């Protein structure tokens, strides 16, 4: 061959570490500086006095108690639901139930709380039904309410993840079970339990972490010294008592516990991308109709049919009724006037701006970290260093958003009117909160596609922006679309950062909803909740369509 091909000129590209260093710098500046500011403001903390304080002891104890109970309840209930759904692979409404189950990260907490109150609250559906039967009413506030809400969010998530594992059981196993004449008990012991056992510790850890750091649920349904978690106590110390020292002390306790939880989940390799199993599609059934029949016939008989149907029906009612109650009550006489009210419109605008800005900032940070991490992990073969670079994006999991917010407040107070730049601060905090989610969604596809083609990319000299345009974007736009959609809805429904910085002047929809619920303007609250739910669902679908494109390219 003659060597007449045009040479690739000595084009200067950005060094590979630039994007990662840039993102890392921003993440660290936005977390460590506020944390330092907060510790400096708190001055010397008398730890003996802090831990001797009975209020604090009770708060810490309650945080553990409710998180442990929530985790146990959610998992125990999720197991039969997942099994029933797996045993019945085909029935009308199955995909609806499964899809609603995977929405628990999309539905804003405060919206779900409204629905839960409408069903289980003092004047809700449940108590109305009970009063007809002259059974004394059930109170939702306190530990009960917190548990109901935590189960509402985490049972479907857990069931959905377990279902992915159950459906991953190869159809040969079912044929073999049938041939060996295994009954339901043996099938559970030898086939189903081994398929989900490995997933349970990491799932428990995930749910425990979510419940331990839960804010909006405890703030609305808990409250009072008897049902307060550390996270809510921090908020109360800051917003009502202006006691920075107490807040820092609480924040430090929370930080240490979160750090332990994060180390546990990092050590637990199963935890990788766990929460996003919830999004992995089930629609493409690998099992043929014939295999499904074969499998379902293991649980034949009326007793099993009744058991399965009632488990699925109860789970569906539990999850769907709050959403239904919300939709029904939001279509009330104030519907038009609330939607057109300047306060609502203003909050809606703020929400959309904050959500989109946070998601974009978060995506930029994630892509910055991932691009450099990819180079480290795949081209330079420094797997551990690359993993650590990515993990730096998870720093918010250790630092509670409220601590971060307070730190930012203290840091910026000398230079600006903090409440007038409230939205900017909310964007920063929300983007950091979404970063771990984006990183987890993108990690797999990013590394996998690069792994497959790295030598080819090198030998053809595809790099820099061309690589992004020709290779990365078409291959990754689908997961990028999903990650941005998740980040946007998370920010749109978040109550923690805005609760700290919001005011009469600056509100988002979740804060407006919280305020309307708090002042018992329930009809207005219902419309607001419906609007926020609709907004999140629309954002979730539209963003995935716009960024992800329509056609899924086949991977070979």
């Amino acid at each position, binding site marked *: 061959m003659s*060597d007449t091909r045009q040479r*690739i000129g000595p084009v200067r590209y950005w060094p590979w570490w630039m994007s990662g260093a840039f993102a890392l710098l921003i993440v660290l500046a936005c977390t460590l500086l506020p944390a330092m500011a907060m510790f400096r403001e708190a001055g010397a903390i008398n730890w003996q006095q802090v831990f001797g304080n009975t209020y604090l002891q009770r708060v810490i104890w309650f945080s553990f108690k409710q998180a442990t109970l929530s985790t146990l309840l959610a998992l125990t209930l999720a197991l039969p639901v997942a099994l029933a759904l797996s045993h019945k692979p085909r029935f009308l409404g199955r995909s609806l139930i499964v899809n609603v189950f995977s929405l628990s990260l999309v539905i804003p907490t405060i919206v779900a709380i409204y629905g839960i109150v409408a069903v289980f609250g003092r004047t809700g559906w449940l108590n109305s039904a009970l009063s007809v039967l002259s059974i004394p009413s059930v109170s939702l506030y306190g530990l009960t309410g917190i548990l109901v809400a935590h189960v509402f969010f985490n049972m479907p998530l857990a069931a959905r993840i377990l279902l992915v594992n159950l459906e991953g059981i190869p159809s040969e196993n079912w044929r073999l079970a049938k041939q060996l004449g295994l009954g339901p008990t043996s099938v559970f012991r030898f086939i189903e339990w081994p398929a989900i056992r490995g997933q349970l510790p990491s799932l428990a850890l995930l749910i425990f972490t979510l419940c331990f750091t839960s804010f909006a649920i405890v703030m609305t349904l808990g409250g009072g010294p008897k049902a307060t978690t550390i996270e809510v106590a921090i908020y109360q110390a800051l917003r009502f008592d202006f006691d920075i020292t107490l807040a820092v002390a609480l924040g430090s306790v929370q930080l240490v516990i979160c750090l332990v939880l994060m180390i546990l989940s990092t050590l637990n390799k199963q935890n990788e991308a766990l929460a996003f199993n919830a999004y992995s599609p089930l629609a493409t059934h690998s099992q043929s109709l014939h295999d499904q029949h074969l499998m379902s016939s293991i649980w034949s008989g009326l007793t099993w049919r009744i058991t399965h149907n009632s488990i699925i029906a109860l789970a569906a009612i539990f999850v769907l009724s709050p959403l239904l109650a919300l939709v029904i009550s939001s279509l009330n006489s104030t519907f038009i006037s609330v939607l057109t009210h300047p306060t609502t419109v203003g909050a809606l605008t703020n929400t959309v701006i904050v959500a989109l800005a946070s998601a974009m900032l978060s995506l930029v940070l994630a892509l910055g970290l991932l691009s450099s991490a990819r180079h480290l992990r795949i081209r330079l073969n420094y797997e551990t260093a690359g993993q650590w670079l990515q993990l730096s994006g998870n720093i918010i999991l250790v630092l509670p958003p409220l601590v971060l917010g307070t730190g930012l407040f203290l840091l910026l107070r000398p230079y600006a009117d903090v409440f007038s730049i409230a939205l900017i601060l909310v964007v920063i905090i929300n983007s950091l909160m979404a970063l771990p989610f984006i990183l987890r969604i993108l990690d797999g596809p990013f590394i996998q596609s690069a792994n497959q*083609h790295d030598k080819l990319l090198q*030998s*053809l000299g595809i790099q820099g922006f061309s690589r992004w345009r020709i290779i990365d974007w078409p291959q990754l736009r689908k997961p990028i679309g999903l990650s941005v959609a998740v980040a946007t809805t998370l920010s749109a429904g978040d109550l923690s950062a805005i609760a700290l910085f919001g005011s009469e002047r600056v509100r988002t929809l979740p804060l407006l909803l919280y305020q309307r619920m708090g002042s018992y303007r329930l009809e207005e609250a219902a419309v607001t909740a419906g609007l926020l739910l609709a907004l999140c669902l629309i954002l979730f679908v539209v963003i995935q369509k716009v960024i992800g494109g329509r056609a899924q390219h086949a991977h070979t």
Partner: protein
Amino acid sequence: MLTLNNVEIQLGERHWNYAIELDTHGVYALLGRSGSGKSTLLNIIAGFLKTNAGDIQWRGDSILTLAPAQRPITTLFQNNNLFSHLSVSKNIGLGINPKLQLSRQQQLDILNVLENVGLSGYENKLPGSLSGGEQQRVALARCLLRRQAILLLDEPFSALDATTRQEMTALLRTLIDEFKPCVIMVTHDEDDANAMNATQLRMESDHIVFA
């Protein structure tokens, strides 16, 4: 002449030393069991692995410090030769211009080279709709169009069935006779080496010998 001048590499516990001189238009087959360091040699020549010592020269000039894309080398990998989201012609076009900015003439070159490998009319298809043998032929078409002096074949047939393998070998042999590159083929199958009419090299413990 492609010269490997006592090239040394340490990968974990393993250590290799490569010293060999290959003819500019020679066709070589490198045999050895998996893990014996065959592919390591290709990765070193192509520039995917950094060496600890020694030099690699092509016609007297060192190519050791050049990036993979700047070396006079083109590689046919065992798999993952094609991007599944790009059409056949774009996959080939990336071999001439990594930014995919192709002139009218280059577009015609792509159609011609597709004819060379017997895939006329395939230019707009996606790799997923092609058989394994057809995919390898597209990758081969790109190698041809790159007009590089050294052609590295990394177990190019091992994922193909026997019939397709024979067809590919015959095609490859014809194209090599026509373009006369320096060919190094890594394989664990002696029949492949014979069918290609190749001079056999063998990995012995940590170094390379003429068989």
